[in-house]
């Protein structure tokens, strides 16, 4: 009799455990598609997604982590990869673009230990206001790798937000600038659908 009770208890535990797993499987996606072909992300952002060969990249938001982005493995093997993202809290603290740019590039790709050369810096219109776009290239002579990146700073309320794309190549590799055009479309199409947490505080 005791043995039967034990078996029933074990079954209940197994069923409970399995139903716990099922719950995580049915987690809802954080986005939906609009009739215009744009993505509505958590009812907070709207943007034009990249073509289907780009994979969604999402890192759990915490200090200095990106909110979400996209990545594409490029031909040529490692390190040929392109990644772009929206970042609600880009490196740095300044609320003026020029100040934030300096703070940002102190820490951007800091694990790679590369020096950036600015290729272009210009004012742009982004998320309904003025912004700053900075295109850079960095080289790592030890690993024989290089990276081309573009960072666009914009404003959400009083705070600076950022968009960035990085494209890694071997030192003699050729950049694919069409990826930067896809990034530009993503940035240009990006809209805030509601006020940020900080604006409503």
């Amino acid at each position, binding site marked *: 009799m005791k043995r039967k009770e034990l078996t029933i208890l074990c079954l209940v535990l197994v069923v409970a455990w399995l139903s716990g797993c099922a719950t995580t499987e049915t987690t809802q996606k954080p986005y939906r598609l609009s009739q215009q072909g744009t993505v509505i992300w958590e009812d907070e952002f709207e943007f034009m997604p990249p073509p289907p060969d780009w994979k969604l990249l999402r890192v759990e938001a*915490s*200090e*200095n982590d990106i909110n979400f982005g996209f990545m594409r493995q490029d031909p040529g093997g490692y390190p040929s990869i392109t990644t772009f993202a929206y970042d609600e*809290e880009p*490196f*740095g*603290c*300044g609320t003026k673009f020029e100040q934030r740019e300096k*703070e940002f590039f*102190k820490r951007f790709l800091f694990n790679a230990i590369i020096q950036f050369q600015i290729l272009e810096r210009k004012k742009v219109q982004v998320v309904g206001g003025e912004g700053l776009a900075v295109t850079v290239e960095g080289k790592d002579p030890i690993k024989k790798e290089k990276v081309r990146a573009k960072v666009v700073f914009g404003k959400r309320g*009083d*705070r600076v937000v950022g968009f960035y794309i990085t494209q890694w190549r071997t030192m003699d590799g050729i950049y694919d600038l069409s990826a930067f055009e896809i990034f530009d479309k993503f940035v240009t199409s990006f809209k805030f659908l509601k006020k940020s*947490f*900080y604006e409503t*505080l």
Partner: protein
Amino acid sequence: MEGHQRNLSLYERFNARVLGVSRDDTITLKYFAKSLDLTFPLLSNVTAFLGVSFYIQPEGQPIFGRRTVVIDKKGIIRYVRDGSPDYKDILLFLKKLNQEGGRP
């Protein structure tokens, strides 16, 4: 730390001040603050008595555990969270505390 720096004006609005405490010496903290452009005070507690008082000094280790503590104007600890700071949670708590009149 950068998150706190970004939120300084909001802390000000809620009558709160932020302090960082670590076991590093003052010279190290000076360079750390400069590297991150921090303008709020960082306190050096090399002897670790603050860490012991707040139960964040792991035995035999030279650093504090990471903990966020909010102390009200009466000196009462009102909020404790371990790990990376949850900045939005901290701001919501400070807003509530300020509305209650229990200024941090």
